[in-house]
């Protein structure tokens, strides 16, 4: 249940909870400002046609993140259902 993985490993339709951010510098604060803080439930909505970036549902907003950045976001509690934050 609490196996950690990174955000970019989520498949379409899966959601997970952020447990740690490894990103550094400006992007770290940017991610937090859009609501990606520890404890936030995120679901993976859809990959772009070329597979990267991927669109995630974060606190009601759809945010696209490149794999370089989503691989720095550690998540756990992966489940198959989307949009659980509601």
């Amino acid at each position, binding site marked *: 249940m609490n196996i950690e993985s990174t955000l970019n490993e989520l498949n379409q339709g899966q959601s997970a909870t952020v447990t740690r951010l490894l990103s550094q510098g400006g992007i770290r604060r*940017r991610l937090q*400002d859009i609501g990606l803080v520890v404890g936030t439930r995120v679901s993976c909505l859809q990959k772009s*046609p070329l597979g990267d970036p991927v669109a995630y549902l974060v606190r*009601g907003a759809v945010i696209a993140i*490149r794999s370089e950045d989503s691989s720095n976001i550690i998540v756990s509690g992966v489940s198959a259902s989307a949009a659980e934050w509601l």
Partner: protein
Amino acid sequence: MKQRDSQTETVKVIALSGNPNVGKSTVFNSLTGMNQHTGNWAGKTVSSASGRFSFCGTDYTLFDIPGTYSLVPQSAEEEVARNFICFGEPDAVVVVCDATCLERNMNLVLQTIELTGRVVLCVNLLDEAEKKKIRIDFPALSEKLGVPVVGTAARQNRGLDDLMQAVDGVASGKIKNKPFTVAYAEKIEQAISMLLPAAEQINRTKLPARWICLKLLEGDTALLEEIKRRFGIDFLAEESVGEQLKEAQALLRQAHLSGEALCDNIAGSLVRSAEHICKNTVSFGDKGYNDTDRYLDRLLTGRKIGFPVMIMLLLFILWLTITGANYPSQLLGDLLFSIEGMLGEVFRFFGAPEWLQNMLVHGVYRVLAWVVSVMLPPMAIFFPLFTLLEDLGYLPRVAFNLDKYFKRCHACGKQALTMCMGFGCNAAGIVGCRIIDSPRERLIAMLTNNFVPCNGRFPTMIAVIAMFFVTSDGVLGSLLSAALLTLVILLGIGMTFLVSHMLSKTLLRGKASSFTLELPPYRRPRIKQVIVRSIVDRTLFVLGRAIAVAAPAGLVIWLMANISVGDGTLLMYCSGLLDPFARLLGMDGVILLAFILALPANEIVVPVIVMSYMANGSLIEIDSLAGLRLLLTENGWTPVTAVCTVLFSLMHWPCSTTCLTIRKETCSLKWMAAAFVIPTVFGMTVCFVINTAYTILARCF
């Protein structure tokens, strides 16, 4: 950013802030009656606009500041926004929020409330929220936040009076806000209270001491420098503050709350407070409220169909433009050229000298008529169609689709947005590059923007393509024209990638930086409004340019064709001079000269070519594309000439407005020169290769 001057003391200053793409510009337009361009994508407003309005006998200046997610700035744009709220001393700050995404927006609201109590929360896009069955309890929200909360649907002019009422109350002090205080972790609060007395003692700024304490703890030296610069107070140098700060920091270190951990904790508290405030005040009636958006996303950004749909949309828009432009073009042409005949009569009636008549009618008027009849209809049709897509929210999806290519070029995915803007106007595209945070990636976007043909260029392409490559009339013909034009545009996009990649490996070496791209909810485009608005805007814009640029250009051409130098005219001399070089590129001297003379506005390329050929002897009535085609072929045009002209139109120097904009945005002549040289070199190379290949092949067979 403008500061208040003493003369306008009675004018109240209102700042309009908010996350990107929440409809700030629409609120701004509704309140001021102005016409700032609006669109459904994050970062559309790249510079602050200001406008005035009166309400209940008070005059207000409203500042539309760039959208920002946070008051901890990550880019120059966000710094502008933060500084306005911090140091612009607004009488009230209206934070505009998206009702469909209130919790995320609340983060900025809380940060703003920490900074100034004079906040009015404007929950906009209420119409969208209602459609999605999202209910917001405004009184409860207002109670929790301690500031007035007003629901609006600015696109439908709903709720704006209430908003003004609240703004008036807050700005005049009639409404006393009791703003919510974000509670941080216990140790952080303890550290703040240790610092607070010392900070309060020396705080002569209008900023709350508590907020300054937070910044001291966070170690936001850039902000503290700014305070020192503006108010002459150096908090860090003050002994009493310094001592307390050391102790407070020691306390936080013990609690493992220093550096990054502290910033994380603060950011986390803000997000959790936002969560707390929205709990029980925002309810979702329909859990599947975003289903339509997700369905559209699967259609427009799907793995298999995302790209085909994108290309089909481009093709469709171009086809509508070409088909739709035919009839008005013909009509305008007939009208304007019949006026030309009448003008001649008028001149003869008043006994005006022959040369004056020729100069004004055949010179100035004819170019003007050309630009209006041939260039205006496609521009007036393309622009509204494009604006509809923008209004819908499609442009960020284009960026989403294309981002991987930009990543491979070590560039920013938002470059796709600036590229799209380039279709309307390259100068606007260049200014739009401000949405790109990394200076290196921003420069790449600016230097390559010209590879997208702007509104002033593709009517030329359409005309040349229609003349030389489309033989059939009707739907089939216009479809073929649209398809060929689509190919040209795709080539331009391909060149954008190629050149971006090359720049990343040479002049602007570096790795792609991190960024997040918001895909906003789709919105139903306001079809009637958009069409009327943009047709009027475009028509006025083109007519303005026609008078300011095309008419003088007509005069210059006429003079060049009538001033003799040696055996021939100045025009023949200049084009003759360029001719040998232009022939290498598959064109002729006249065409190259036309491109050079069209530096102020690309719209006049074809009229200048036509004028030059006519001045050189041919006397053909140009009332249709067929007549024009005859004129061109008589002057030696072949399909290769047509191809090279179209490609050179795609890839040559930017117009003078664009050049000046690049200069202004980069503050550098060097980069302006680069933006001038790069597309030119590529265009010349491509034309040379095509022409040479054709010549060799023609010789072999």
